[in-house]
């Protein structure tokens, strides 16, 4: 057996410390050790985007980072966005446009959409679609998601 690593990660403003094996990936840590189950595992190989989270401000795949790599990092998940009052307009737009059905992709979808909106990109639909190309949704067909992101940008009031 490998040795355990004691890691402390700030998740949604909470300091979470645990001793874990190196092979535990960040998203498993967040869900199992920290109990934030809002982010989901969809494929565990970085393709589906359901586990997309913010690590030190950058949108990354939670399944393609080890928890030990995030020792000392600041992580924000969908729960944190809500708790900190971020992406309020984006959530409202998702609700208004019905940009989610089963909701399993939504936590990652919101993080990717937020990255796009906060980078100041345009509401051009093709550009939005290109940016969201790394997040899989089986339910909606994507149109309502694009509608929601475009609506937030066009409102000019930020995410």
């Amino acid at each position, binding site marked *: *057996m490998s040795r355990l690593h004691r890691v402390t990660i700030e998740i949604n403003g909470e300091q979470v410390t645990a001793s874990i*094996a190196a*092979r*535990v990936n960040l998203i498993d840590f967040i*869900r*199992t050790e920290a*109990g*934030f*189950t*809002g*982010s*989901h*595992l*969809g*494929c*565990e*190989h970085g*393709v*589906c985007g*359901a586990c997309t989270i913010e690590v030190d401000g950058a949108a990354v795949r939670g399944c393609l980072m080890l928890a030990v790599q995030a020792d000392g990092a600041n992580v924000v*998940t*969908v*729960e944190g*966005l*809500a708790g900190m009052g971020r992406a309020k307009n984006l*959530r409202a737009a*998702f*609700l*208004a446009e*019905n940009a*989610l*059905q*089963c*909701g*399993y*992709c*939504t*936590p990652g979808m*919101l993080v990717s959409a937020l990255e796009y909106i906060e980078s100041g990109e345009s509401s051009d*639909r*093709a550009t*939005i*679609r*290109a940016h*969201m*190309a*790394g*997040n*899989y*949704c*089986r*339910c*909606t*067909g*994507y*149109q*309502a*998601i*694009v509608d929601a992101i475009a609506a937030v940008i066009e409102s000019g009031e930020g995410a």
Partner: protein
Amino acid sequence: MTGPATIFDKPNAYIGKSVSRSDARRLLEGRGRFVDDIQLPRTLHAAFLRSPYAHAEIVHIDSTEAETAPGVVRVFKGEDLIGVVEPYVGILTHLAGLRSAPQMPIAVDRARWQGEPVAMVVASTRGEAEDAAELIAADLDPIPEACDAETALDEDAPVIHPELGTNLAWERLVEVGDTDAAFSRDDVHVAERTFRFGRHTGVTLEPRSAIAEFNPAEGKLTFWYSGQAPHMMQFILAKHLGLVEENVRVVAHDVGGSFGIKIHTYGDEIATAAVARIMGRPVKFVADRFESFLSDIHARDHVVNARIAMERNGLIAGLEFDDLSGIGPYSMYPRTSAIEMNQVLNLTGAPYVLPNYRARGRVVFQNKNMMCQYRAVGHPIAMAIADCLLEDAAAGIGMDPVEVRRRNLMADDGYPRTSAAGMKLDDLSHQRTLQELIDTMDYSGLRIAQAEALANGIHRGIGFVSMVEVTNPSPMFYGVGGAPIASQDGASLRLDAGGGLRISSSITEQGQGTNTILAQIAAGVFGVPIERVTVATGDTDTAPYGGGTWASRGAGIGGEAMLLAAHALKEQVLEVAASMLQTTVSALDIREGMIVDGGGARISLSDLARTVYYRGNELPSDLNPELVATRHFRVTGFPFVFTNGAMAAHVEVDTETGLVRILNFWAVEDCGRAINPRLVEEQVRGGIVQGIGGALYEECIYSGDGQLQNATMEDYLVPMAAEMPDIVVKHVETPTKTSILGAKGAGEAGTGGAPAAIMNAVNDALRPLDASIWRMPMTPERILKALGRI
């Protein structure tokens, strides 16, 4: 059927309004509750060793080393579940002649597909369970396999179940009129093609997941699962684990996509329940993505030789085809794997007047993962056969594809009637939806633009489909054949002391908005603001008994049950109110949570309920207030309630790369009364995009020896945002007369219709190059081959 018509137009009616989903708020803040979010104390995590071979004798499985690996509690082999789990067989009596073999959750003597469980490890963590699964010494002796459905019936093909004699599972023939005579006429144009539909699968983003917990003190099994039909699962677990049904509780909270994948009996899930019972500890199984691709049911995979005879005036003289489908080594339990072929035979050509129709279908066993019902069962195949042949033949006689449909589609005023295959049809609007589609898409303008593009070397095409969708199935779908699958659904409402309405239903929510439409119906029919309605679904301990959500039945059947129950509760409440207010029931109504009469609000529901619950002494002693109502509903008189729609695709084919870009897509859907138009539109859009997946991207690619080559999300291509078009959806509403609500289903039309429209559009684009393609998915390689470029 008639009913309280005021439910559709009174001030607090919600039916017909695009109310936003209260569930969505929760999900947007990360407050969903999916199976893997549940962490119970002492949980064991399951991992399965799965057969690496398509067909193998299980000589010996030595788990000695695995049993002693860190974290491992126990290893189970197939034989360990003999006597624990009663084997299951996927046959139904109304599919006469369908055969299959008994199946166990973990293979016992033989493994029959790559991915079939051969051993199960339970350990403290999933990682440790996987470590131990690698340590199992499984002596599997590969034996000749029958993978290719097209050769599985050959004399020399290995027989997968020797006791059945051959690999033929089922065969069905439909013959109406004189097809031979129609094709032998010398005044008809005949178009004949071989269609191939790739194997694909549901790729729910949440994988199949289950937690089983057995409480020996009560003899009670609780099974949380990601599924669509809790009561069906309750029956199956009880029957096959030897429990009484009431001691099995099945709970489906949030479900991360289902699409028909999650209505079947999977060995790994049954084993999870059985092992939880043996171990007396909770056991969790969450399929990883490899396991999803290798064991979630697959669908389609049909080869169809088909031909159409068309008169010079465009009328269809005859249609015939031969459909062959490989279903894997077993017919899936309990719905069987014969339904898709059955649907193909039932639905092909159903929108059209078809005097002569002959179809043969065969389903065969093969050593690949099992096939069963996935969204739009049989529809994409049936629609492609008829509508792609129709456009092919129309091109052959030089007729426009819209005109040929106008001439052959059933008249909107000609119902009720039956289709060629004997399906009872009513309340359809093919002609009107087609006209609405043409008006919406500016058809003539597109044709001009298409010609201009062609002059510049750009190959664009326009393709159509006119379709039917099977929704609201009656007991004639499954129950008649002996399946433990309810066709009726129940709804309950309870007026609480605070004046809120607590409702429950046996239909289930997987993101369609089921809970929302139930709340809309309850709030509107009963008379409270929708914010005062809380909805509970998905728990066999508390929900009324019923079928769940599949086959586009939730709104039409479960919604009607809710309407009936809400109406009943309203009558009951008004009876109490009339007594309290010294007036008559007919003088009263309930609006926005208040009992009203001609003079306005009289008493709030809360006051009424508190009187009933706390101060019954104030009520006449002969009044027995009942503030709970339950009603059930099933479809009678029709096996199914059909919907119809018309769709069109506008595509551009890059003839150098073979890539197809969808420029536009339009759909006009008639699903009867739309309870929530936005939710209907989103069902249609999402469905169309899955249909686009089947047409252009998705395929389980197997090697000749039955190895799945693309069991990752990187290699199995699902539609992603960048390539998908914006989709225009319009409604035509022809309510069904089988219910007061008038709602039909809408969940599968898009998936069922889009592939044919896209195939027609691609072939329209290729026609000037004298090329055509009849195989889905229409990959770049296949298109380039069709073009003779490679």
